């Protein structure tokens, strides 16, 4: 576990020096919220019906930017070979990468939600429950995304390929997360069904990724 945290710490330190990825993720999610603002008009009537969709589109699209860079930056500098030479299990690299991606996603989401609240003049009820849904949904997004990001980094058209292969796999997460968010925002707190799907999905993909991650970075 220490080793995973070391890899995550290395990633985050490199990221906070340049803030290249984080800044573009933040700006992009801000742009998405703004574009929805233009598309729906200045004061949409049923904002609580739009909010879940807008938020999750912003999270997944901005998250995609981060994921596509997650392994590409390693590849360009030849760092991936260095990582592979480390005397650690390959799955430790995966967990480390997933942790650093999760933290970047949480920072981005922590900024996007207030921006949304301010721009749409909308006070989010049941913030604790929303946080929990976002946590589980983001975990599923990152567990699959990190694996597929490592997979596409070896292909020539990786920037195009990642969204194409990632979104179909993510559909269960997005559907359940959006539906749970819709329920919570309209005051219904009975979201056990959605949480069960999200939890199962997270567990399955975390285990599958641990088992097959090593094949994605083999040479």
């Amino acid at each position, binding site marked *: 576990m220490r080793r995973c945290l070391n890899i995550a710490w290395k990633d985050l330190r490199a990221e906070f020096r340049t803030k290249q990825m984080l800044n573009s993720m933040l700006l992009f999610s801000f742009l998405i919220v703004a574009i929805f603002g233009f598309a729906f008009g200045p004061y949409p009537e049923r904002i609580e019906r739009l909010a879940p969709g807008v938020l999750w589109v912003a999270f997944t699209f901005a998250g995609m930017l981060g994921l596509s860079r997650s392994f590409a930056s390693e590849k360009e500098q030849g760092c991936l070979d260095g990582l592979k030479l480390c005397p650690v299990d390959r799955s430790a690299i995966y967990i480390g990468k997933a942790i650093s991606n999760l933290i970047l996603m949480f920072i981005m989401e922590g900024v996007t939600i207030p921006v949304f609240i301010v721009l749409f003049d909308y006070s989010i009820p049941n913030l604790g429950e929303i946080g929990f849904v976002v946590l589980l949904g983001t975990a599923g997004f990152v567990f699959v995304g990190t694996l597929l990001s490592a997979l596409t980094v*070896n292909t020539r058209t990786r920037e195009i*390929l990642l969204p194409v292969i990632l979104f179909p796999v993510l559909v269960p997460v997005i559907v359940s997360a959006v539906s749970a968010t819709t329920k919570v925002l309209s005051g219904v707190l009975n979201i056990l069904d959605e949480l069960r799907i999200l939890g199962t999905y997270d567990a399955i993909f975390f285990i599958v990724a641990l088992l097959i991650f090593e094949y994605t970075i083999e040479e």
Partner: protein
Amino acid sequence: MEVKKILPWSTLAIMIIAICLIFHPASTVYGPGGEVLGDYYRIFYFHVPLAWVAYFAFFVVFISSIKYLQEGGQKWDIFALSSAEIGVIFCGLVLVTGMIWAKSAWGVYWIWDPRLTTSLVLWLLYAAYLMLRSAVHEPERRARLSSVFGVVAFVGVPLSYLSIHLWSTIHPEVFKSGGIEGEFIISTLLVNLVAFTLLYTSLLLMRIDVERMNEKAQWFKKGA
């Protein structure tokens, strides 16, 4: 060698029998109240076997991918590729026959029902699988990366199959008490299931042959 000669012909024979059975008057589909439903309901005899073959084809991709990752060997990769291609075609046909049926039964081609949505996602998953394959050129790396995705993408199959239990849906459930009744109808459906499974097997064997010849041709090209 013998099997490869017999299989296409027996497939053809059973397909003809199956089609005759579908248009036999006794295989008219009855509604829940016992009323006779229109002839367009007979498309269900295609729809169900197609869906079964699509699931099965993706299951073969899943197993071949695991086998490839475990022990290597190009034959597993060829298996996965051939099965995925056939699966995408059959899954696409499931969507098309479903839409034709839905237009008559529900009045619209498409509704965002969980069963329909998950089937569309299934098609997208394996179309993405083929996209991934076309994006990598080195054969060994292509086999390895697509095997990883073949394992990941399989999540769509149980999801699509179980979608009618997970969420509320208006898609009819065939295999349950009160789903389909009548010996003739069930046997027509079973003959169709056998016919389409045989069709899948023959197509798979042919596709594998094509791929092997393709490799041989590549090998000769390199030698020249």
